[in-house]
């Protein structure tokens, strides 16, 4: 009876095919640079600017590049971005304040701080002054839905509007529907500028200030250290500072 294995050449071809098959299987279990991680974001310029390059997207892109990873940004509404990350639909979130992993059990924080996030109140009224969350009580107020720290601190506020986007938020202010809106310091200024709200006022002091961090889904636990290391290296070699200077407007 003839068999394919009767000939040594045929057997060698089968062996090579088997090795290739096994190699392919092994490689497929490793994340590859050409399969970018989907990182969702809720932030706006200058922190995130997918068209022109913002501070955080450029920093993250560089860090991922250093870590040998690809990256793909996905803008989302605030609450949805966390739900998608927690459900593993997206691979990461750029960027959030610390402590969210206690609320969402499936997410991991990359320890290296990206930037400080300043919660401030914006108004067009020249007479309004605020000092802390409690001082907002007597004003009509609008916030972004899904910003955890803001929602928690304004939970008891009676005249509160929640909107999905920064444009909606600042349009409310522009049209005089609310006295105050709460947003991030740099992003708020950028939006006001874009909407040509010339009489915008940023009320001081800041309502809160929190560091922003990259979050990853827990399935990427092995990547946390690599990305963190890349971020550290960017700060130590000046790459981060260079991006910061290129993207962030100078402080007053």
């Amino acid at each position, binding site marked *: 009876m003839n068999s394919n294995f009767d000939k040594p050449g045929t057997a060698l071809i089968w062996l090579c095919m088997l090795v290739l098959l096994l190699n392919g299987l092994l490689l497929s279990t490793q994340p590859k640079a050409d399969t970018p991680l989907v990182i969702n974001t809720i932030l706006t310029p200058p922190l995130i600017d997918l068209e022109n390059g913002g501070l955080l997207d450029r920093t993250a892109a560089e860090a991922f590049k250093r870590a040998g990873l690809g990256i793909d940004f996905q803008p989302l509404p605030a609450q949805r971005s966390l739900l998608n990350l927690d459900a593993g639909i997206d691979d990461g979130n750029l960027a959030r304040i610390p402590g969210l992993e206690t609320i969402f059990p499936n997410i991991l924080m990359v320890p290296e701080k990206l930037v400080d996030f300043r919660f401030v109140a914006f108004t067009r009224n020249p007479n309004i002054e605020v000092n802390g969350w409690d001082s907002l009580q007597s004003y009509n107020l609008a916030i972004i*839905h*899904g910003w955890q720290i803001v929602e928690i601190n304004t939970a008891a506020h009676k005249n509160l509007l929640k909107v999905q986007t920064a444009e909606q938020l600042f349009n409310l202010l522009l049209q005089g529907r609310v006295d105050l809106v709460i947003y991030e310091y740099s992003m708020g200024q950028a939006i006001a500028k874009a909407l040509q709200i010339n009489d915008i006022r940023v009320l001081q002091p800041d309502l809160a200030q929190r560091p922003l961090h990259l979050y990853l889904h827990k399935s990427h636990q092995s990547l946390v250290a690599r990305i963190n290391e890349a971020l550290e290296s960017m700060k130590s070699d000046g790459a981060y500072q260079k991006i910061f200077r290129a993207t962030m407007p100078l402080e007053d």
Partner: protein
Amino acid sequence: MPLTTSRNLRVSRRLIGGVVLVSLLATVATTLLQTWRDYRTSLGQVQTSLHQLRNSSLPSLVNAVWVADSDQIQAQLNGMIKQDNIVLAQILINDEVYWQAGPSKLKHAVSVEFPIEYNYRNGIIDMGRLRVSASLAGTYTQLIEKASAILISNGIMAFLLAGFILIYFHFLVSRHLYVLLDKVQQFRLSSGSDESRPGIIRVDDELDEIAQLASAFELMQVEATRSYERLLSEKDKSQVTLASIGDGVIVTDRSGLIESINPVAASLTEWSEEKAIGKPVAEIFQIIDEVTRQLDPNPVSLALNRGVKPRHDQNKILVSSTGTETAIEESVAPIIDNDGEIIGAILVFHDVTFSRNLSRELSWQANHDSLTGLTNRRAFEHQLDEAVVEAGMRKQQHILLFIDLDQFKIVNDTCGHQAGDELLKQISALLQNRLRRSDLLARLGGDEFGVLLRDCATDKGMEIAESLRSIVQEYRFGWESKSFRVGASIGLVEISEKGSIRDLMRFADLACYQAKDGGRNRIHVYQNEEGEVRESEMLWINRITEAFENNRFELYAQPIVAGDTLEAHHHEVLLRMHLADGTQVPPGMFIPPAERYGIMPSIDRWVLRKSFQWMEEHAEFKPRLAINLSGASLGDSLFPEFVTQLFDDYKVSGSQVCFEITETTAIANLTQALVLINLLKTLDCSFALDDFGSGLSSFGYLKSLPVDYLKIDGSFVRDMVEDPVDHAMVQAIHQVGLVMGIESIAEYVEDDSVIEACRKLGISFLQGYGVGKPAPLNHIFADHQAVKVASAK
């Protein structure tokens, strides 16, 4: 015919009932079907409205869920439950309710669920499900109202229909059936003329089914009447048959009351037929057990109650109304109809007085001795067997006595059998009078009687035995002016559960024999077999001693003949003993005890002396005798001296004497045997080795034993013609003898074929019944002496 209340309207009632029931069932079924269809329609409508929500509300809800805007979601859910029938709207994520509008617990509601999916990055994300529920409470209310209306209207219709059918059925069927009913009720079977029959049933002119039924009834009437007449005729025949048969026949009904009794039954019971009929059979037919005289349960009642034939017993006696008793055999059988029900019983019986008397007599004769009327041996052993079993079961002891009459033979011999028979009868009566009621006396044969003393201790048994012995001893039997005394020797055996009948009878016989041996007219209690044998041996020693004292030993001689001429060469001396009553005892009876008690040397010496004496007396014939020596004599150191002295005392030469020693004795006492043989050989005596081959000893011993003859053991010789092994043994022994110069003597030569076989082998001498029987020693030369005396005269 008008509808009357006296009629039983069961058919009409059933018809109405059936119609109403079927109508109701149909109504309920159609109502249920209609309600079910309405329910399906309503449900379809509700489900459609639920599905419409999918198109109207779901898209906006998906967006609200996408941005996780709780306020927006809740507002949309609240909007949904304001629509018709919708009572509950829920958003479920991973099967947990996240948002809800409406109450959680619902009754009679139907729910549908829609997936909440969002198209994201070229894929579908499942964000959860929308569940909306609609209430069916209103639908149910409508359905119940509708079903009630249908049921009520259809029910009324069913009752109206039933009423109509009832009236119409009566008009068409019932009234005609009543006419038929009346006619059939009036119908009576009789064997008279046609005029006595009921008139023809007229129902209607039309030949419808009822009219056909009427005609069929009419035909049936005619057929039934004819059958009835035939039955009457059969009944007459049966009654004549019953009246003419020889058996009594009684027929009863189911309750055991007599329906008929034939003349034979009436005669045997002494009840007239008129009086007996209608009476319980137990009153007329009373039977008792022949043995117990107890009233037997009535066999008819048994047959009626159990439906089986009672066991057929043979010892029944019928007691008539006047108390007359008749031995009968009866049989009873239940009468069973086609449905298997018992409807009565038939009792058949007949007079068996003659055959039962005959059978009783035969039975009596089989178990009794015809002379004395006592139980015979067969019946006695049967009773004994039962007693042994009973002894085992109840742990009782019984006693068996074996009685042998002493001196009975004298009466029989001197006065004839008639006197003997009379003596036995009288003794039987005497013995019977001394026994308890429970004891059994039997004649075992001749003058032997057996007594079974039931439940009896040994002491009591001894007491009774002694009483029997003494009554016989005191008794005097007179016959033709002669008077005889008789005695009874009694053996007593205790009966326990062990031992067979044969053993018991043997022990009793042995014990009786001991009583006789012990001097007659006494009682001997059986100890055990070994003890009895020992006791027996002691008895024999006494007898041997007695025989010595009274010169009751006698010498016999058997010729040993030459193989070719069959003429006597010499004779072997044999010993016989006579008892006081003249009975001759063979040596097998007394030699073993004599050996065990060391008397053999004395016997040997007595034999030797007598033989020498005889040889001296018959010196002119130069007789040659072979004399047996026992092992004890071989071991007796004084024996050689005794023999030497004999030769000195009598004119006998050593060549006349041959000593026979058995093979086993010689080997057991080899040294002494050699000394004796060598000594006596110097006196020219010869020696024979007796029973050679029986001990299966080595031929090697022959070399050291200088014997002259080998006596081949009779057990080989006797069967040498038929048995080739025996033949070979005889041949082998003879051949060895030839080689060693020893002549062989074949013992037990009993017929011509053995003589011929021995001759062919060339055996020198033969001994046995075939060539010469033992005879008293003194007879050997008696003929010669007689001739000599005559010629001298």
